[in-house]
């Protein structure tokens, strides 16, 4: 028994070490650093400055806009992604010849590298690119230099691309949810003469609620951390900088304000933690929540 405990501990060691060194230590470090003026460039060494970084964030226009852009991104893209993913799942859920081809095609963007997708759309969105030309055809005039070079369209263009990219992934989760609904329910409904619209609203939708909620929460957590597409497509210009972009920008580019960036990271952490807590509650509950 003693021996097997020892082995158990040995087995846990890889996780214990990586967790302590690469997760726990950095988390504590940046929590503390958030209360100092720690910076790579200052020679004086770091000084404890209390809540100054957080007060600074409150007054920082760039941080405000990063916060605003991130929330626009989450609030705008999560519901659209969820609805589209559900519609696509319904489209491919029936037995149809060629169904797996459609599924694979819909899923294709979500296994492609974000950097690659962002590069492709940088071209499609630019002046003379496909999206810009199509938009002109249907009467929407794109900004002079293309969609990514104007504050009024850049963020929304990135959001649209992001929805396009991730919708196939959530479609798969919806499909799994659809599969889990017992067929008997539909048979019973049909016998009683319920129309397919009625079946959708009385059976499919209520039973998919837990799945939909799960999708909304994980997609929100992911969307709060949007970075790569913004980095590649606009470098945070034209009012697109997200919170992670802000952290990256003040933390590890030219300024190296580690303390300030750490404080910003903890603000993000608190926001995401709230959503993560929600996820935890949902995962533990088996019953639909509403």
């Amino acid at each position, binding site marked *: 028994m003693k021996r097997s405990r020892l082995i158990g501990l040995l087995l846990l060691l890889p996780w214990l070490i990586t967790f302590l060194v*690469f997760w726990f230590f950095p988390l504590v470090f940046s929590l503390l650093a958030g209360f100092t003026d720690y910076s790579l460039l200052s020679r004086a060494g770091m000084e404890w400055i209390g809540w100054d970084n957080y007060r600074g964030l409150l007054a920082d226009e760039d941080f405000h806009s990063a916060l605003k852009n991130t929330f626009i991104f989450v609030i705008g893209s999560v519901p659209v992604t969820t609805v589209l993913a559900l519609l696509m799942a319904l489209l491919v859920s029936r037995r149809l010849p060629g169904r797996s081809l459609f599924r694979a095609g819909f899923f294709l963007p979500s296994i492609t590298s*974000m950097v690659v997708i962002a590069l492709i759309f940088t071209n499609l969105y630019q002046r003379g690119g496909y999206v810009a030309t199509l938009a002109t055809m249907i009467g929407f005039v794109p900004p002079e230099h293309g969609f990514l070079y104007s504050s009024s369209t850049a963020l929304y263009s990135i959001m649209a691309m992001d929805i396009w990219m991730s919708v196939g992934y959530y479609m798969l989760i919806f499909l799994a949810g659809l599969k*889990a609904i017992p067929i008997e329910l539909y048979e019973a409904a049909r016998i009683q003469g319920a129309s397919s619209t009625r079946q959708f609203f009385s059976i499919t939708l209520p039973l998919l609620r837990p799945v939909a909620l799960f999708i909304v929460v994980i997609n929100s957590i992911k969307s709060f951390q949007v970075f790569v597409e913004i980095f590649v497509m606009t470098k945070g210009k034209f009012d697109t900088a997200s919170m992670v972009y802000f952290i990256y920008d003040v933390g590890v580019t030219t300024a190296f304000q580690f303390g300030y960036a750490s404080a910003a990271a903890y603000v993000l952490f608190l926001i995401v933690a709230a959503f993560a807590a929600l996820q935890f509650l949902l995962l533990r509950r088996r019953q639909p929540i509403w």
Partner: protein
Amino acid sequence: MVTNRIHLVLRYVGLSAVLAVMVFPILWMFRVSLMPAGAAVGFGDLFSTGVTLTNFIDLFRQASIGRFLFNSVLVAVVVTVANAFFCFMVAYALARYRGLAGRIMFVTVIVVLMIPAHILIVPLYVLMLKMGMYDTYWALMLPWLVNPIGIFLVKQYLESIPPDMEDAARIDGAGELTILFRIVMPLCKPALAVLAIQVFFTNWNLFLFPYILTSSESLRTLPVALAHFQGHQAIDWQHLMAGSAVAVIPVLIAFGFLQRHIVSGITAGAVKQ
């Protein structure tokens, strides 16, 4: 009967329209990667210009894309293999040795699952600098050798396997390591396959951390190299898309073979009845 036909046709029309939207940008990438450098990349040009492989040849000759490909493969393979072993070990310990320590570990795993990795940008950067690992392969691999989602996945699977076989082997005098790697690990193959696929895909496409934790050209993975190309004045769309194709083709091939596992990996855990 006729309305059924119409329904079917409508469904296919809808499906094809969505498919076109989803696939076009990726097809566009491949088409542009095959266009002669310097040709226009606009509406209509896709069909009027010829097909050539010179962009790919240029990249392998001049831009050391072979090196980036090697880095991507190396990092993704090492991290994937390490995850398969380490997540399995941890999951086994958590699934079989119950007790206070085990429960604390499990809660830790769950908590870490929920921490956004992006808040580690600054501390990981500083840590790698201080440990002398900044701009080395270590920086690309070490933080990702074990992952909580993987531990969770394998643990759930292990709990569905009764421990009888292990006990029988123990009575026969097999050592713990033999039991672990010769008996239990093969049983976990389905879960480990799902884990390996997820880890491989994630790491193949990873951008932010490889980007900030390295600076030399020789350590760039494909996504990092592509982001650097983009800032380059001399690189045109044709070469950029050829580079992108190099990053995407392995993923497409893998997806073709592993589709079923990928789908089951994504839906595992998402839908619980």
